Each structure stands twice: as C-alpha cells, then as structure tokens.
C-alpha cells in the first residue's frame, strides 16, 4: 500500500516514519503540509515533532494547513490515518479524535522505553497484534497527558476505542492510563508512544512497534484510494 507521511514545518520524525513504513512492507510517499494533495495514497501517517513550533497549542495551527483539509476529508471516507505524538495532538485538534493532550502532570519531558498493552486490534493499524499484547515502545513527550470529560472517557472505553494503555506506571498523567485511541469507525488512530522508533533491533528497545506498520497489509488494496 502507499502510505503518505506528512511533513509540517517542525516535524521531527517524518523520515523515521517513512522508513518504518518501508520496513513494514509498504511504499512511503512524502506529503507536504502546504499542498492540497494526498498523491493517491491509501493511508496517512502524521508524524511526531513540534509542528509550527507548538505555538498556541500543540497541533492547533497544523490543523488548518492545506494538507489537513484533505486528510480530514479522506478520514471521513474511511482512509486509515495514524497520528503519532504531535500527530495525535493534531488529530485531537482536528476533532477527528475525542479529547485533548495537555502538559505532562509532573511538568518534565519524558523519554523512556514504555510498556503498553494493545487493547484494540480491530483497527487497520493494530490488526497484526494479538489482543491484550504487552509491548515496549519508546515514549517521548512534553505534552502527552490525555484528557477528556468523564462521559467521553466512559464512552470511548465502552466502545472499545482505547487502542493502547500504559502499563507499569503512568508516564504523563493521561487519564485512565490511555496511551492511544481510535475514532468510532476505527480508521483514525492516535498514539502518544512512537512505534516508528521501534521497528529495528539495531536501534531502540526492540521491534514491538513494527505491528503498526505491517497491519495495513491486511487491508484490501485500493479500498480507500
């Protein structure tokens, strides 16, 4: 499948994400924030970083970039979209995902190998994991505290929209230990940890993140193009 990776001004992990897409067996297509063009891709990754310098709020300016108009429209048609870290923040600001991400409760940047449980394996990004799989994926964020009102939290838990949860300690104050969520349809996933940094044994804690990039292969070609 052709997987687009958007580069915003201030994106950091776009090249790693492109590499992870290729390691996962798909074709990586660079996308530019200023273009109204998804270049015929089948899925989109919004990578980590500090798009637009995190000015105003993380993801608040990126949400209104030309490429996001296309991403929001394609996500509405069911195209798989994965937002990692800053990408997760952009998806929340875009209202493609519920809730918001605020500064870590302890006010320090975290950078660690994080244990996670994959709770929803019915999304196009997580189908190659076993339900309840416990994995280690690097986490690095300053504003990774997932918050939403209690009613929203109850709803996303009840509907099975929690994709991943922190294990062995909550690293950033996320409510109910939520590390990643999906929209109701399941095609849009936001994740605070960085699976693109956990796809090769040479670097990082292992290859537990690879599943996020191999899961797409299970989808029929051209379903969303």
């Amino acid at each position: 499948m052709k997987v687009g990776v958007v580069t915003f001004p201030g994106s950091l992990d776009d090249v790693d994400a492109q590499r992870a897409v290729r390691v996962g067996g798909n074709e990586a297509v660079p996308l530019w924030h200023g273009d109204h063009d998804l270049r015929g891709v089948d899925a989109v990754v919004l990578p980590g970083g500090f798009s637009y310098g995190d000015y105003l709020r993380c993801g608040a300016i990126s949400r209104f970039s030309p490429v996001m108009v296309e991403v929001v429209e394609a996500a509405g048609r069911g195209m798989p979209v994965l937002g990692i870290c800053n990408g997760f923040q952009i998806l929340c600001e875009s209202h493609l995902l519920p809730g918001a991400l605020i500064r870590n409760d302890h006010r320090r940047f975290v950078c660690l190998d994080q244990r996670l449980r994959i709770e929803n394996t019915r999304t196009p990004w997580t189908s190659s994991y076993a339900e309840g799989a416990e994995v280690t994926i690097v986490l690095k964020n300053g504003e990774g505290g997932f918050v939403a009102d209690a009613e929203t939290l109850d709803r996303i838990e009840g509907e099975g929209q929690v994709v991943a949860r922190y294990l062995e300690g909550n690293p950033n104050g996320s409510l109910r230990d939520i590390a990643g969520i999906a929209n109701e349809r399941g095609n849009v996933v936001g994740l605070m940890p960085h699976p693109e940094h956990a796809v090769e044994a040479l670097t990082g804690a292992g290859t537990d993140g690879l599943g996020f990039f191999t899961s797409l292969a299970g989808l029929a070609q051209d379903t969303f193009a």
Partner: protein
Amino acid sequence: MPKVVVDVMPKPEILDPQGKAVLGALPRLGFSGVTEVRQGKRFELELDTVDDGVLREVEQMAETLLSNPVIENFTVRVEG
C-alpha cells in the same frame, strides 16, 4: 483603534501543570498566602471597528482557533 480582548483559561476540572509550577515557585521567593494559581492566555485583537457582528466573529475565532473548547473556556470583551 478599538481593541477586543479574548481571555482563554483551562477549564476548572482540567489539571493546569503550569499554574501548579508557578504556585510552587511563589513560596520559594518569599511570597506566601497564594493558595491556587491558574495560568491562561490573553489575546489582544486590534480591529477597525467593533460592533455586534464583529464580536460574533471574534467569538468564532475564539471557538475555532484561539481556544480548544475541549479543555479551555474563553471570554470576549471590548477594551479601550
């Protein structure tokens, strides 16, 4: 030139780590008696004219860009 001020504050139920950091720093500087600090943002918009229509538009700006209604409240007022 008329000025419209938009104040954006984290909702009361949302944790405000920055406010907490300020609260923690005050006693270290010898300021006592402050029991709570909430930190927000203030936007000053200079406009050619201000009328009800303009204020409604500023409300829209505040809702869509200046604040995130999921975690923040805002107020709009004319100043000066």
